[in-house]
């Protein structure tokens, strides 16, 4: 009896949280037109969410690209196809690794910070204070952060892919001696602007939406104690990772499933 009760409790709790998350998202979306008129708030947030993540993205992108170059070369050289290294590096970065890895890094670097920030604002009753002064905290605090995350991630993913391809080129051309011209021309013939690059951008837009939503909701829904904020931050990273990887499969199946 106790097990069934706990199961029921869990189900009700989860549905409640999902419902709250949905209502929260609706409130954010309703606040978007308002924050477009106060865009300086959004710019401030793009700075702390996007600009401060650039270094992390640059370094990780470079190393991921370089590792792809090394590993790809070792496999391709067995088939005498090391000229295809460019294609391999560019397609794997543009289609998968760029959007996914940058979204995971973004969840760890910016998402957790957002959750902690909002959670602390809640536990120190800054949000209730705003409400007392008839300032809507959703519009003043949450929506600019949401827009900032949503705008930043596609740029970060594009930077990640570009730097990664340069890293693969550095290793392939500089270290392993793959032919310079073949590297780029094969890449250009096999990488499609619409099918590969734009689909990658769409992926990163979806990830930006979901990760920022999860981060803000966890912060806003956190139990207002130090322990609660800590848990909420952990949940942000874990749930974001699940959401990114799960959605990545769904999006890949939709975009590239019939190729």
């Amino acid at each position, binding site marked *: 009896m106790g097990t069934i009760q706990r199961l029921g409790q869990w189900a009700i709790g989860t549905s409640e949280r999902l419902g709250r998350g949905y209502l929260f998202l609706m409130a954010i979306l309703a606040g978007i037109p308002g924050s477009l008129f106060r865009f*300086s708030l959004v*710019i*401030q947030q*793009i*700075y702390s969410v*996007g*600009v401060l993540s*650039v270094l992390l993205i640059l370094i990780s992108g470079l190393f991921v690209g370089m590792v792809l170059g090394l590993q790809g070369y070792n496999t391709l050289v067995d088939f005498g196809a090391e000229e295809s290294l460019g294609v391999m590096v*560019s397609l794997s970065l*543009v289609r998968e690794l760029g959007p996914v890895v940058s979204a995971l890094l973004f969840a760890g670097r910016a998402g957790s910070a957002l959750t902690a920030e909002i959670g602390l604002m809640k536990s120190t009753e800054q949000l209730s204070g705003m409400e007392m002064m008839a300032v809507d905290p959703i519009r003043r605090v949450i929506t600019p952060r949401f827009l900032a995350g949503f705008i*930043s991630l*596609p*740029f*970060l993913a*594009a*930077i990640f*892919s*570009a*730097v990664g*391809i340069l890293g693969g080129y550095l290793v392939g051309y500089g270290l392993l001696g793959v032919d310079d011209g073949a590297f*780029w021309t094969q*890449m*250009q*013939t096999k*990488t*499609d*602007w619409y099918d*590969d*690059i734009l689909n990658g*951008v769409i992926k990163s837009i979806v990830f930006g939406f979901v990760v920022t939503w999860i981060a803000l909701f966890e912060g806003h829904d956190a139990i207002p104690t130090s322990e609660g904020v800590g848990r909420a931050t952990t949940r942000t990273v874990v749930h974001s990772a699940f959401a990114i990887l799960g959605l990545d499969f769904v999006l890949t199946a939709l975009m590239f499933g019939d190729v």
Partner: protein
Amino acid sequence: MRQKKSTEVTVGLFVLLGMGALFFLAMKVSNLSAFNDEQGYRVTAEFENIGGLKARSPVTLAGVRIGRVERIELDPETYNANVVLNLYASFDTLPTDTAASIYTAGLLGEQYIGLEAGAEEEFLKDGDVIELTQPALVLEQVIGQFLFSKAEGDE
């Protein structure tokens, strides 16, 4: 206010960097720069068998790429494949008796259409049909024919 200005400048730089990365992906990594063939002209060729030819496969003349396959349709009456080729507008001096064949790049490479110029005085125009075509070589058929003729020769 001073601190805010520097924030705005760095955000501007960030957006520029992101746009630059996208531009790099578009121009250097993908084939967007080769997309100037939109104003090309279309020519149809009918093949018995197209093998592994796909839309966007290259069309070459003397090994030089002069267009790409736009779409492939099945003719419900002749059961042949109608391949619509999109050729660059700058190569508008192909004779009307140009022949089209389907070749494979390398042993395992992708398939492409090779054109061979004819000798007619008139040139192909938008909507014309290439009459002389040679279907793709299907390896199983070739081996089958070879075995068949071998068996016949033995008797």
